[in-house]
């Protein structure tokens, strides 16, 4: 099993050496980007139960952090250092909004973060000296080979996936799940729910910010309507996760693959009609497989979820 996993990992790393088509690589890159986004949303919305309708806020903050860095004269290669910086600024924004909203329960956080992303979009449109406004920020990308971009996003996806898995196996993960299941109960078990919701949001917004910063580097162009988009970023992060399977480790990856496949392939055939198709697909999934694809498969395999620690037989 372990050997198979290593073999699969090596194969994934070697893909650009085999796949020469830039279009195919582009699709793989977008898929990996959405793996990161889906998994980030999943940590907060799926595992911690704190649904966000506005994760584009963090995506946009990450993207604009690098964007402003480049605009202010940093060399294009420097933009890569913005990956980490984009994550950090997004996590700080997450800390602030969480600190304000997480004392309350209910829809306050979900709606506040939606408002935040819209406010940030308007700021990005109007604060032209900083952001170039609606014209956006354009730069000359660092690499001309897509393979490099593939490897970088693969590394980001791998790190975020492994980090979130490690979190979910630790005390933090148990606390997140306890908060999702019952906040009163979690409090009585000694869990500072406000603090741990904040931790979950900060990890989630960090990786979303890194993805945003990567997006700027890869696309070499951002404008406010792209990176702060409600329907193309915030909502899509939720749909990708739900499609694949909320609160599963592989759900966001499966959801991302299907999303990119459906939208890219169908875009060629039926132009923007692909959105209709994707919408119908989501409705079908929600009605017939509310746990998403991975969640339903897990259930069929007779293990709703694998207990992370199997109770040992009393010796």
């Amino acid at each position, binding site marked *: 099993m372990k050997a198979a996993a290593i073999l699969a990992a090596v194969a994934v790393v070697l893909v650009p050496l085999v796949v020469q088509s830039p279009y195919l690589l582009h699709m793989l890159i977008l898929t990996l980007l959405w793996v990161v986004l889906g998994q980030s949303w999943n940590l907060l919305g799926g595992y911690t139960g704190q649904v966000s309708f506005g994760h584009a806020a963090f995506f946009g903050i990450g993207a604009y952090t690098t964007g402003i860095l480049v605009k202010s004269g940093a060399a294009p290669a420097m933009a890569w250092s913005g990956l980490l910086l984009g994550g950090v600024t997004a996590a700080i924004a997450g800390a602030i909004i969480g600190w304000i909203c997480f004392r309350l329960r209910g829809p306050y956080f979900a709606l506040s973060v939606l408002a935040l992303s819209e406010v940030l979009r308007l700021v990005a449109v109007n604060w032209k000296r900083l952001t170039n406004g609606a014209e956006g920020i354009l730069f000359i990308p660092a690499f001309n080979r897509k393979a490099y971009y593939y490897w970088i996003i693969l590394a980001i996806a791998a790190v975020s996936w492994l980090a979130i898995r490690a979190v979910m196996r630790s005390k933090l993960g148990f606390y997140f799940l306890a908060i999702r299941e019952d906040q009163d109960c979690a409090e009585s078990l000694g869990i500072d729910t406000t603090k741990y919701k904040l931790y979950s949001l900060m990890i989630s917004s960090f990786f979303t910010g890194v993805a945003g910063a990567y997006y700027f580097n890869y696309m070499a162009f951002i404008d406010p309507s792209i990176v702060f988009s409600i329907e193309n970023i915030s909502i899509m992060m939720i749909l990708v996760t739900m499609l694949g399977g909320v609160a599963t480790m592989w759900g966001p990856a499966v959801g991302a693959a299907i999303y990119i496949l459906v939208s890219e392939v169908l875009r060629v055939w039926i132009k923007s009609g692909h959105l209709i198709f994707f919408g119908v697909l989501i409705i079908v999934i929600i009605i017939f497989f509310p746990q998403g694809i991975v969640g339903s498969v897990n259930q069929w395999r007779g293990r*709703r979820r694998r207990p992370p620690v199997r109770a040992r037989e009393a010796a």
Partner: protein
Amino acid sequence: MSLLELTKVSKRFGGLMAVGNMSFALEKGEILGLIGPNGAGKTTIFNLINGYYPPTKGEIFFAGERIDGFKPHVVARRGLARTFQVVKPLARLTVLENVMASAFLRTEHRDEASEIALEATAFAEMEDWRDRLAGSLPLGMRKRLEMARALAMKPQLLLLDENFAGLNPAEVQKTIEIVRKIHASGITILIIEHNMQVIMAISHRILCINYGEKIAEGTPPEVAKNQQVIDAYLGVAADAVPPRSPGDPARA
């Protein structure tokens, strides 16, 4: 010094005085029973001690420290665990994971947490249920899970809120054994219970409340004989109703 002490604690919900001027103390090593009719304010008292509600007036001391106004998670960390009358299983987690989530209060390490959780589930005699999802448990086991989870916090004081309600006689016996084992392990217990046989059998002292106020306090036989307690709560067998005498001092 008492382990837990309430002095003149009141809780008002709008116009309703749910708990009024309540004072009592709980000594280390004691089992104190809390009885009273439905709506008397028993669970509200738990919610006040546990920090779920701040009291409107009065002070609560636990292990020498004033804890009223602390949040539940802070109170829990100080060594006070509770169970819920309306059970709150972490439904999509297994029994063992439920107890581990609670065991993490006393450790950062997963291995130690699972060690503590294995012990606590064994203590509550639910070894065979460890891998079951908590949401799929029958009521008796849910009540036991509440106890296992509280035990994994290694508390000094345990608040049990109707852990016997809805259990069959065999389960009641088993739960009495478990409560006694918990007490024998050095944990002080405050218990709310409607089952009079249970409360009389296991409590050292009993406190009876009605309309949020204390109406009697004493050993089980004393409380059982108290006329106010009989009137408000226990009642009498239909064939044993004594003739009412207008001059009865206990009813004055």
